[in-house]
């Protein structure tokens, strides 16, 4: 029997238990008391923080199952981020899901399953665990995207997501099989050592394997050209699910990419360096130009999140070029991820809250929001401007570390990418600021939407408030985010 350290897997166990409790309790709850399952799910994620914090404080590392499952600082930091993001998404979901026949019990079950998958993912140190965890993260989301069963757009979102998802999974698995074929190993350490022992860091098949695996991750993080599903799926899914997709699911893709690239393939920079350079440059540019034309807020956020994925890929490219770029790039990406998670969830929370009041996600319908709902208006401005990278909101620090990670490299490749990123940062400003401008500077419509909220709005407000605090505090004290980056950077071998 393999030795199992129960503390090390306690966060996952708690989430899994919460998931099962939700499943069981849901059966016995009458319809009008279904909101209890939301409370249970929230309690579950909160409790799961306890062992994460305990382990973080103790500073011990755990390695189980022949090193295929490791709990180290990197894993803990990201487990924490996933839990917080999951917690916020749960809060965002409550009023939305409760207000209609959205099968609450099953909804929370699937959300917790996906969260469980992401948490396992952070500790995955071999391809099997990685693959299974990725599937657990993504599988429930295919279904959740179609959760508004009567809505054709939601159906469509679900099927598009699913088809592109299984295609990219297939390509990724093919790549994994090639990687296994080249090294005879499944664990990241084994693969790394086999590559360096075999001196095959620039074999073309290895390049193929790396690229195919990157397809799987590129799909998850919605980087161009693997992003096509994102705008349609984001627009059609229930907005809380979209929030989850654009944050936790994207994060999961990045975590998997970080682990595979930095643990298994650090020597293969010849292949992933240029590939990610291109993906970053193209993602930023294509997505930003597309976003300029959007009038649907959620679709705009979809393109924005593709563009943000491009920004998050920039440090990878830097990591491939610079001498000690690996740890620098890893730290920068993690910092960006952490900040992005919070500010993007905040943006979604505002959009959901405003959407429920206004009854539309078309930007022109949002004009004058600041005049009749200053609270939402301020939140909107803060989160969107943070996404745009305006100091002293947290987003600027994310951009800062991103630029730094690519500028430490010498040579034209890094500089060019920085220039592309800089131009894109400006272009992005136009569409973020456009929304803020519409909300604050345009005249409110004659008929101001009434505040017709009937369900509980407390959780949604709480989510917005928490995100707001984080965005402001991290913006002024970026040291808090650096901590995450430093902890995560310890991953680099």
């Amino acid at each position, binding site marked *: 029997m393999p030795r199992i350290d129960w503390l090390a897997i306690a966060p996952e166990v708690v989430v899994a238990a919460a998931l099962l409790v939700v499943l069981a309790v849901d059966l016995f709850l009458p319809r009008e008391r279904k909101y209890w399952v939301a409370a249970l799910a929230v309690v579950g994620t909160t409790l799961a923080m306890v062992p994460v914090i305990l382990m973080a404080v103790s500073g011990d590392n755990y390695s189980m199952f022949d090193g295929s499952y490791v709990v180290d600082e990197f894993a803990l930091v990201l487990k924490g981020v996933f839990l917080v993001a999951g917690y916020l998404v749960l809060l965002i979901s409550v009023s939305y899901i409760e207000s209609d026949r959205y099968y609450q019990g099953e909804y929370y079950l699937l959300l917790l399953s996906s969260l469980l998958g992401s948490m396992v993912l952070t500790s995955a140190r071999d391809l099997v665990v990685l693959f299974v965890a990725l599937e657990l993260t993504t*599988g429930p989301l295919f279904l959740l995207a179609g959760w508004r069963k009567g809505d054709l757009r939601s159906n469509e979102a*679900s099927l598009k997501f699913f088809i592109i998802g299984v295609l990219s999974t297939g390509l990724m698995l093919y790549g994994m099989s090639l990687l296994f074929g080249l090294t005879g*190993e499944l664990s990241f350490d084994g693969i790394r050592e086999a590559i360096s022992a075999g001196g095959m860091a620039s074999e073309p098949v290895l390049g193929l394997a790396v690229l195919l695996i990157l397809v799987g991750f590129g799909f998850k993080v919605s980087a161009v050209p693997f992003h096509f599903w994102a705008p349609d799926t984001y627009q059609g899914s229930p907005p809380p699910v979209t929030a989850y997709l654009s944050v936790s699911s994207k994060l999961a893709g990045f975590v998997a990419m970080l682990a595979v690239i930095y643990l298994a393939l650090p020597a293969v920079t010849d292949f992933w360096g240029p590939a990610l350079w291109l993906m970053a440059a193209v993602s930023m540019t294509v997505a930003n130009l597309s976003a300029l034309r959007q009038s649907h807020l959620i679709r705009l956020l979809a393109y924005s999140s593709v563009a943000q994925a491009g920004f998050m890929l920039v440090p990878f490219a830097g990591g491939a070029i610079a001498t000690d770029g690996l740890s620098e790039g890893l730290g920068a990406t993690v910092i960006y991820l952490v900040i992005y998670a919070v500010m993007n969830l905040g943006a979604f929370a505002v959009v959901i809250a405003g959407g429920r009041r206004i009854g539309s996600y078309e930007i022109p319908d949002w004009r004058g929001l600041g005049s009749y709902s200053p609270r939402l208006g301020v939140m909107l401005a803060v989160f969107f401007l943070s996404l745009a990278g305006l100091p002293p909101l947290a987003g600027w620090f994310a951009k800062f570390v991103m630029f730094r990670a690519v500028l430490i490299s010498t040579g034209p490749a890094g500089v060019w990418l920085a220039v592309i990123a800089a131009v894109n940062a400006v272009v992005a400003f136009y569409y973020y600021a456009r929304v803020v401008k519409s909300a604050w500077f345009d005249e409110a419509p004659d008929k101001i939407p009434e505040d017709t909220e009937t369900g509980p709005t407390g959780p949604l407000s709480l989510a917005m408030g928490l995100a707001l605090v984080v965005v402001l505090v991290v913006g002024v004290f970026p040291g808090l985010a650096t901590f995450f980056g430093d902890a995560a950077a310890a991953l680099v071998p």
Partner: protein
Amino acid sequence: MILNQFLILAALLFCMGVYGLLVRRNAVMVLLSVELMLAAVNINLVALEAFWQTSEALGQILAVFIITIAAAEVGIGLAIILLIFRNRRSANVDELNLMRW
């Protein structure tokens, strides 16, 4: 037997699956094509496992996981297809273009 005869067969099946995924209008048939792709990956893994002869049969184990997950994916996919069929009376993938641009 040489390794590549298996690998090329797998590659062929894989690309057939990709082709099917790209051209089939019926969503169920798209799903069938996906199964073909995954079967190809499994051939790859088993052949490469035969090549490496790892002590823990790593390739085959990954293949077992892929088979299991694939079954789950089929369930998910069919559920979605059913849902769409109920709403639209059609399971044609290329009719789904309410959202674009």
